[in-house]
């Protein structure tokens, strides 16, 4: 075993591993992701119908979906939806809520400061850092292109 060719072994193992069920995953991601977005549209329409401006209705929809994602995580349902839907449940804003609430719940036993607060962003942290970082860079480029030059 000391003489094992790592490159060849890796290649051989790759063939042993069952392939992910791409077609089924894509199908469910499309259905569930689509349903979440449709729900978002329904909520937006309702807020608009109640007299909210387009901007307010959009923000209120995000808040409602985040609440729903957090609630479903709290009662232990969201991970089951995600198991089936994959990216369909991870990409919408509800998935973002799930990625923050799940660690917050998990690390409750380690205390409110070093548990909940410190660990809350272990999954969402990179999204926030690079999301906000990118928006700053894009904003600067936009500023330079439109105003600065």
């Amino acid at each position, binding site marked *: 075993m000391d003489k094992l060719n*790592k490159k060849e072994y890796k290649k051989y*193992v790759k063939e042993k*591993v069952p392939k992910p069920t791409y077609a089924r995953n894509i199908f469910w991601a499309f259905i569930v992701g689509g349903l979440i977005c449709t729900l978002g549209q329904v909520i937006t329409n309702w807020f608009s119908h109640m007299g909210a401006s387009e901007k307010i209705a959009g923000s209120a929809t995000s808040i409602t979906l985040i609440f729903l994602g957090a609630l479903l995580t709290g009662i232990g349902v969201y991970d089951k939806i*995600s*198991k089936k839907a994959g990216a369909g449940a991870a990409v919408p804003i509800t998935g973002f809520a799930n990625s923050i609430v799940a660690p917050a719940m998990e690390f409750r036993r380690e205390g409110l400061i070093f548990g909940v607060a410190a660990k809350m962003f272990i*999954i969402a942290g990179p999204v926030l850092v690079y999301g906000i970082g990118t928006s700053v860079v894009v904003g600067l480029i936009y500023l330079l292109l439109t105003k600065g030059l």
Partner: protein
Amino acid sequence: MENKRMGKRTIKLVNSPSIINTATIVGPKEGDGPLREYFDIILEDDLWEQESWEKCEKKMQEEAIRLVLTKANLTENEIDYLFSGDLLNQIISSAYAARQISIPFFGLYGACSTMSESLSLGAMLIDGGFANNIICSTSSHFSTAERQYRFPLEYGSQRPFSSQWTVTGCGASLLSSSGEGPYINYVTTGKVIDPGINDVNNMGAAMAPAAVDTIMQHFKDTGFNPDDYDMILTGDLGAVGKSVLLDIMDSQGYDLSKVYDDCGMKIFDNLRQDVHAGASGCGCSASVFNGYIYSELKSRNIDKLLLVSTGALHSSTSTLQGETIPGIAHAVSISNFKN
């Protein structure tokens, strides 16, 4: 002094210690699996009235040790050493369980190979005359392992098909210098083998070469071949690792297909219980060996067994730093007949 070494890495025990009793405690999912009737205690939930999963795992170890003492009609004072280990950082389940129990304690970390590692060391100590009674105990817990190695439980993610399910379980064996068997006759110690796998969702493939290495060395050192065993049982290679092991052994001229099995493929009904490539964790070989296999040895359905618990010696830090996963496997040869 009598030399007990055989070949390169095997020890032939002259005063073969007897495994006089065992105890197992498993979680609800394991209790729903095909081996349910062989476990002593099946938990109704994975907290067992504790505040955290870590505390539950600690309680599992403590209670398994107490249970094996009760079953063997012995007290803590009559045990010379406790060898135990688990998967958590600083092996807290074992250390905190040992805190509750007044037995001199050696903490072990061999990842999921800890069951046969503890049996190896315990058997050698008894054979050498350094102890009369030793308890070897190992545990793992799905929820404590998930949060340490992977994601929070409620986080929605899809597990790849090569991934395995960490067993919530604990097994304890009581070794004694006297007893009616089954006996530990040979110990072959594993070397760390790193086949260059870096996918933490494919630990079976990372550990299989280490298991092959130890099993082949055992055959070379002792002169045994696969037919000398009723069963050769690895710890937690799962579906992928099991198939890899059979392939490599076959290419080396050993046909293991008739006698080989893997604890990780026995404890769950992989399809119905949706565990993908099978089970893993220290508690996997601990609960399968101390539950089902011990009962089979006792009822003479199996007379000669090679137990090869397999471990992946990585951590979440080494994975993030781009390290590959080193594997290890320790073999103990157990028989109803003394050497």
